[in-house]
């Protein structure tokens, strides 16, 4: 995967969490992932088609996503409820939107599907292209999460 395509997803993620959840994520060094085991407890996955094909996943640790959603809603969330699932789908959708806008600036037109959300310890992330994928790890004051991208670019 072309490393130029990593930045739009990294910046998109930071922009969404900073704006909607007032959280400043700290990106780590990207690495290659060869299996389909999720790095977090709940993941949003969205398919991408057009000039670039593949999929994007965001996978959050439980504590991290509960803090993110609490901040987004302005109320404390204490369990992994339906609001969390909804929010993970919406965050994935927003990150995809910001990243695709940035990729449009590189003359690439990309459409996105409806996001799906999967949860549970060691759940699978099944990328449209099968893999391998690039992981961009993030740390927050409330726990880690990753962006998991697999593109044919």
């Amino acid at each position: 995967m072309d490393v130029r395509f990593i930045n739009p997803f990294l910046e998109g993620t930071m922009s969404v969490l900073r704006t909607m959840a007032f959280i400043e994520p700290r990106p780590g060094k990207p690495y290659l992932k060869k299996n389909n085991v999720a790095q977090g407890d709940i993941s949003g996955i969205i398919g991408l088609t057009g000039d670039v094909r593949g999929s994007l996943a965001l996978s959050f640790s439980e504590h991290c996503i509960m803090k993110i959603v609490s901040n987004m809603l302005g109320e404390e969330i204490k369990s992994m409820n339906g609001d969390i699932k909804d929010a993970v789908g919406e965050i994935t959708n927003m990150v995809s939107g910001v990243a695709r806008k940035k990729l449009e600036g590189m003359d690439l037109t990309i459409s996105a599907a409806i996001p799906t959300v999967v949860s549970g310890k060691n759940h699978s992330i099944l990328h449209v292209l099968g893999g391998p994928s690039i992981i961009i790890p993030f740390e927050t004051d409330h726990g880690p999460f990753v962006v998991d991208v697999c593109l044919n670019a």
Partner: protein
Amino acid sequence: MEKKISILVVDDFATMRKVIRNLLKQVGYENIVEAENGEAALSVLKSRKVDLIISDWNMPTMSGYELLKAVRADDELQKTPFLMVTAEALKDNVVQAVKAGVSNYIVKPFTAEVLNDKISQIFKKTAS
């Protein structure tokens, strides 16, 4: 005066409706009703007066774009200000929405201040 307006928030994600409601409350808007898609929104619009529609673009059953066209085609509703919310600031979508008569649009993610600015712009245009 403006803050007393009634606002219909349309989004298929209940959480996103809560997020928008929370942002609206932060800038003083309290009179808010919700609908989960375009069809449900039309039912609300037929049953009560709404001063502003804030609708997501991507929704199953009836999208925000289809809702916009339905509102603009309805004699009683056609002048209702319409703020489109989208995760996609893609040029084609913006052009499509403007042609269909959208009053303003806002790209996710957004802050309460940006949302407030977009609403103020709509009512300034309406007043002039």
